Every structure is written in C-alpha cells, then in structure tokens.
C-alpha cells in the first residue's frame, strides 16, 4: 500500500439549490497521476476547489499528507503543499513571468522592497530544475497560452507544491502543446515524486496520462479504477450512466451544388488588424467543411463576416448564389442561412428570456405565429415550442424558466433546436458542443450529420479537434487568417493537422487540393 497524498472522507458540498458533491470519499496516492473525469457540472472542479481551500465543504473531512485540514483557505492549502492550475489562468497579465511566479512569497530587500533580480534568479533556478523553459522577464500578456500554463505550473512549484491539481489543462492547447504538457507531468512525477490530479473530459487524455481514474456523475463518485483496466468506451458510459455509442456517424449522399462561396475575403479584427487575409473557400450542399485552428487565428472573424456580424473589408461572400454585400444579419438569414454562434451566452440566447421566447426568436414575424403584424399567437407559439423542446430532448424545468438558469448543455440544445428548425439550406456552426457534456455532444453530433445527409451545406468551426474530425468531410486549417492546409477528413491524422494549425506551410506539399 502506497502512502496517501490526499484523502476525502464523505465530502458533501451544498450550494444554494445545488448539491455539488454528494458524500464523496476518495484516496489519492502519493506519486500517481490521478484523472478525475465527469460531465460538466458533475462536481469535479468543486471537489478540487475544496482541496485547494477555495470552498469549505458542508460536510466531511479532508486529509492532506495524513493531516486533517482544519480550516479551508488557499493559504493553508498552499502551506500543505497543494498547488492548483485553474482552467482560467490566475496570472496578472501586466506582470512579468517572475513577478507572477513569486507572488505572495516575494523575495525582499531591506524587508519591504520587492527584489526583482532575486525573483528572476529564483525563476531561472526553477526553470533549470524542472526543465520548463520560459523567459523569466517576459510580460505574461505577451506570451502564448501554452507558456502561460507553464508559468502557472512553475508558480505552484515555487510555492513548494508536491500535489498538483490541473483543471482541464488541455482545453486551450494545441496537440503539440498537450504532448509537451504531458511530458512535463511525467517528469515531475517521476523525477520529483509529485502527485498530479488532472481534471478533464477528454477521455483519450485519461488513457494517455493517468495511472488511476475516478469518474464523477451528478456530484457523486461513481467509480475509481486503474486506467489500464479501462477503455474510452467504458469511461464514457460510466460518465453518462448509460452506454455511449461513439460509433462512426452514418454519412450518406454526395455533395450537390455550391451553397457557400467566399472569395479573397479580407476582414479586420476588433483592433483594426487583418484577421482574415485573402481567404477563399466553398461549401457544397450535403457536406461539412470543418475549420481547424487555434483560437485567435481569424476563424471567429470569418464566421462573423459570413453571418453579417462583421463588416467585410474586401472580397466577396455569397450564400446560395446571392451576394451578402450590404445586407444585415437578418437579411442574410433570409437568403437561407442559420447560425449557431460560438458564444451562446453573448449571442446565442437571451438569458433572461424564457425557453419559449428563445426558441421563437427570429420567427416572431412569421404568419403562423403572428396576427396583424403585431399580435403574437401565444398558444400556437407554446405548442410549437413544446414540440421543439421534446424533439431536441431539452431537459430543464419546462418552457417558462429563464434560459440563464439552465445548464450549458441544455442551453446549447435550445440554440441548436432553434437554428435547426429554420430548415435552411446553409448552416454556420461554431463550437457546437463547447462546455457540453458527453450525452448532449452525442445528440448534437447526430443532429448535425442528419442535416448534412438531408443536403445542408455546413461550415463548422470548433476548438475540439475530435469534433472537427468526427463531423467533417473536408477540413481546412487556418493560421493568422490564411488557409494553410486543405484535406479530406479521412486522409489526415490529428497529429499531422496540428502541424498545419501552427504555421504557414505553403510551399510544402498539402495532402489534398480541391
């Protein structure tokens, strides 16, 4: 029996109206990589926040290194050797790497002056010790997300952590950066005897990195197992509570006529810099074109331009053969386009409006729902909403609740349900399953493919490469507003595509040309 790093004993955590953790007992062994998986809202992060002292459990006890935690605060947790890398990085953007790393335990001169030289010296020592290369004097807001994550890890190491919690660390990383992170994890575990707890919902990562895995569902710990005894399918069905059919989606039909055409498009970003720089693409009926790109490479601006939410500097976009020039988003929709926006809270739903209202947005003026141009046919609308609600398996407290009170997955289903029910020949889909749990992902994916098979032209953009691969017929990679590669989905691997996502590879041979 190995020594235990952490013990949770009968932990319950109640937030107003929600039981986030329900009698969780879990042992983490010293020197292991433990993966904690579960759907969104399963209580993984809550449990880790308890370990890090951010939340105080309503009930139960936590032991760190055999010692009972008496009062819960990050300060106390840090002193007990717990370090946490949060999903959203806890770095001050305008400070340097060294200044961020030493925060709260700054080296001092004369007792009250910040010793910047010593801070950078200590950072360099850490870098040398752990092999996590990063420039100690660089300003954090000017380095990449991957490097920022290293700074986060170094920060916990500086504070003397030997138990490292990583909350969805790979969500923002490229496949290459993920590999590097995993190498780092293996190294700190092997060479420095650290214990690593990694929260994720990417199952292949669990298989790749962890020694043991714990599955949570609805606040409960469903099971703990050695990773080598598990596989992705077993894990997925444990997470959802029923078998998940991660089978290939049935794709039928042949591509028809061209529905989306973009020619030599130039679009600026919010700062007035080129975001899309001379891009051309076309999508035909009955096919899914996936865009694979790291966040911030112009894909968002591209979709905004196509849907009329961002002005076009130069170039031409046409939907079903008609130019969108001079048209507002509403008029572009009239051409036969529906749009699932990437940020459902900002542009997908109205949080304070009811489910019914959100399902009917954009159709208020249709004859079926409207009399004399101003009088809403309430009962017809309700009947319609109920039908959509059932069809799309939206699970919530009925049609009258505010969408803002629903879980991310159900909120997304509301958006998908609304947009799909327009029955348009063209669909623009961004991040269809961001922050959505496995069960809902499966559902949304099958609906998207249904649309494809029915002859819809679909342009898909997702930060989740698996998703892009699963749904797309063709894939383009974007880097700094250019297309850097163009492939048949079946002819390229995830590892290869990462290469095209991280730089301009023109001049090198692309696998597939249209």
């Amino acid at each position, binding site marked *: 029996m190995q020594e235990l790093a952490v013990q949770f004993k009968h932990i319950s955590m109640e937030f107003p109206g929600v039981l986030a953790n329900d009698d969780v007992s879990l042992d983490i062994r010293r020197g292991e990589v433990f993966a904690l998986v579960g759907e969104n809202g399963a209580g993984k992060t809550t449990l880790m926040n308890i370990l890090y002292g951010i939340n105080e459990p309503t009930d139960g006890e936590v032991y760190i290194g055999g010692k009972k935690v008496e009062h819960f605060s990050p300060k106390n947790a*840090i002193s007990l050797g717990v370090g946490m890398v949060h999903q959203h990085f*806890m*770095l001050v953007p305008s400070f340097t790497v060294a200044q961020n790393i030493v925060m709260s335990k700054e080296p001092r001169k004369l007792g009250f002056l910040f010793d910047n030289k010593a801070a950078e010296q200590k950072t360099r020592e850490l870098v040398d010790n752990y092999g996590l290369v990063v420039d100690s004097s660089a300003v954090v807001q000017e380095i990449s997300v991957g490097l920022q994550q290293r700074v986060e890890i170094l920060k916990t190491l500086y504070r003397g952590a030997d138990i490292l919690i990583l909350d969805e660390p790979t969500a923002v990383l490229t496949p290459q950066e993920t590999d590097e992170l995993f190498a780092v994890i293996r190294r700190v575990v092997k060479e420095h005897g650290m214990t690593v707890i990694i929260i994720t919902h990417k199952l292949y990562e669990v298989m790749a990195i962890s020694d043991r895995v714990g599955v949570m569902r609805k606040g409960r710990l469903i099971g703990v197992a050695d990773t080598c005894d598990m596989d992705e399918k077993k894990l997925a069905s444990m997470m959802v509570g029923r078998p998940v059919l991660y089978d290939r989606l049935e794709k039928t039909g042949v591509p028809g006529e061209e529905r989306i055409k973009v020619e030599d498009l130039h679009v600026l970003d919010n700062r007035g810099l080129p975001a899309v720089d001379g891009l051309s693409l076309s999508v035909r009926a009955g096919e899914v074109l996936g865009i694979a790109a790291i*966040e911030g490479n112009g894909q968002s601006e591209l979709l905004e331009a196509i849907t009329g939410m961002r002005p076009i500097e130069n170039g031409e976009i046409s939907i079903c053969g008609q130019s969108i020039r001079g048209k507002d988003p509403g008029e572009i929709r009239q051409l036969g386009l529906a749009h699932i926006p990437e940020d459902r809270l900002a542009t997908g739903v109205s949080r304070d409006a009811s489910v019914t209202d959100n399902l009917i947005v954009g159709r208020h003026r249709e004859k079926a729902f409207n009399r004399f141009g101003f009088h809403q046919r309430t009962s017809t609308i309700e009947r319609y909403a109920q039908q959509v609600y059932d069809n799309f398996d939206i699970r919530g407290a009925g049609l009258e609740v505010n969408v803002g009170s629903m879980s991310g997955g159900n909120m997304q289903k509301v958006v998908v349900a609304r947009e799909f029910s327009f029955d348009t020949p063209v669909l623009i889909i961004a991040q269809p399953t961001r922050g959505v749990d496995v069960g809902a992902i499966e559902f949304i994916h099958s609906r998207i493919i249904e649309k494809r098979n029915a002859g819809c032209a679909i342009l898909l953009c997702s930060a989740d490469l698996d998703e892009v691969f699963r749904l797309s017929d063709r894939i383009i990679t974007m880097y700094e507003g250019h297309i850097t590669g163009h492939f048949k989905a079946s002819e390229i691997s995830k590892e290869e595509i990462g290469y095209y996502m991280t730089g301009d590879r023109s001049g090198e041979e692309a696998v597939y040309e249209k």
Partner: protein
Amino acid sequence: MDDFLNILGSVFSAGTFNEMLRRATPVALAAIGGSLTEHAGIMNIGMDGMILMGAFFGVLGSALMSSAWGGIGMVLVLGVLVGLFFALFVVKFRSDEFIIGCALNTFALGLTTYLSRAIFGTSGAKGYPSLPTVDIPFLDSIPFLGEVLNHHSLFVYLTWLLVFVLWVFIYKTPYGFWLRASGEKPDTLRTAGIDPDKMKWIASVLCGILCGLAGAHLSLGYLNGTFAENMSNSRGYIAFACVIFGAANPSKAYLAALMFGFFDAIGLRLQDYVSSDLTGIIPYAITIIMMVYVVIRGQQKKKHAAKRLPDPAGKT
C-alpha cells in the same frame, strides 16, 4: 506689443510658478490617493466629496481646538472614516462605485454647507488658526527658484515626499504588487492566499486620508483658516482626470496636477486683461484636452501593442 510683453512677463513670473505649486497641491494630494484606488480597480469618482469634507472638518477642528494641528488631526480621523465608509459599500457590499462616489459628493456638499451655516453662520468660517508656511533660509538666496519654491505651506513639501513614498510603495514593494494585482486580476491574489479585498480596503482608506489632507490644504494651507461652501470646486474630478492622465502612476499624476495648477495660476494673472469668467474655464478646458490626449494615446498604444504581439495564441 508692449501690452503683450507685459502679459507674458506676468504670466511667466516667479509669482505664477509659486502660485502653480500652491494650486497644484490639493489636486496632487487627491490624485495620488486616487492612484491607489485606481490600481485597486476602484473608479473613485467620490474624491471631490472627500476633499470638501476634509476642508470643512479641517477648519472645524482648527476652530474647536484653536490649533491648525487639531484640524489636521480631525481631518486624519475623518479621512479614515470616509475611506472606510466608501470601502464598506464599494468593496464589501459590491455597490456600483460610480453611484457611491456621486452619493458621497452630493452628501458632502449638503453636509458641509449645512454644518457650516449652522456652526459658522451664513458668511462661512474665517480667521481660524491655519498652518504656518515653511521658510527655508538658504533658498532665498537663489533668484527665481527661491521665490518659486520657498514660503509654502507644509503640504507642498509633504506632497513631494508622499509622491515618492507612494511611487516606491506601488512599484517597488510586494504590497504594491498585491495592490495592482487586486485591481487587475483579483482571483490571482485570492488563489495566492492573499485577500484582494484587503488591498482594496487599504487603498480606500489611504485615499480618504489623502483627499482629506487635500481639503485641509485648501482651508488651512494659506488663507487663515477659511471655509467657503463648495470649496473643493470640482478639484476632485480634476484629480481623477490627473489619475487617468498619469496612468495611476503617482509621479505622473503629480505632473498632471502641476499642469492644472499652472493653468489655474495663469488664469489668475490673465484676469487683469480678460474677463475672469473666461479665465476661470482655462483649467477645466485643459482637463478636457488632456483627456482627449489620453484617449488618442491609448488607442495608438493598443495598436502598437497588437503589432508587437509575437504569437497568435497569446492574443487572449
């Protein structure tokens, strides 16, 4: 032509620069206080009210204790209380800082006007003990400079010291790093085991004290212990403009306050030639120009920074 030279001569005389220092000081004191709250992520629009209360309670203390130092003591206590009051609503109860600031300003105007009339009568407070001016003997021997720098209220020199001390505090001590982190990314501090709200409380209280002293300088600094209604005369807003102009750096904010003081002093000189209503707007017009400059510079910086960015993944 002679007239013009005369005007120039009087505008750029030692007297003007002496006046500049004196007039800049209350704005500067409030502005360095405002730099603290600004770094803590609090938009402190309530500085004007804090100054006004400082001015009144300075005179009141001076009157009650027959000593300017008594007045200063009262102002210090008041500054702490006002700072705590402000922080209670803004930091603890998370009210909108803009609303609380406005409320503080209107409250201060009403309170001081009422108390002033009730205690000192309609003509206001006059002739109570004020702070002595400081004479530095060797300075007098230096022409021009001596005239500009010497014979000021203690506050003028104290402000120089405070600007330096606060600059060191904000940029050179760990506490300053915590203060800035509490405004820029409070969760970072929280997960480091330090309560960001604590830094905000401290910033509010220090700002209250500094604004109080700014008011005390107005009422006790030169004129012998005088309080007039609405004595702050929007200096708190000017101070806020100085904070923004100086990017919350106390030394830059001080320079901005000096600029304000200079134009204020010029306005006074020009009164001999132009209508005083017209000269009165100069400092405020300058403030507007300053703000326009800040906006333009900010946009240029943004563009510049965007171009310098090496890695698209770092755009977040």
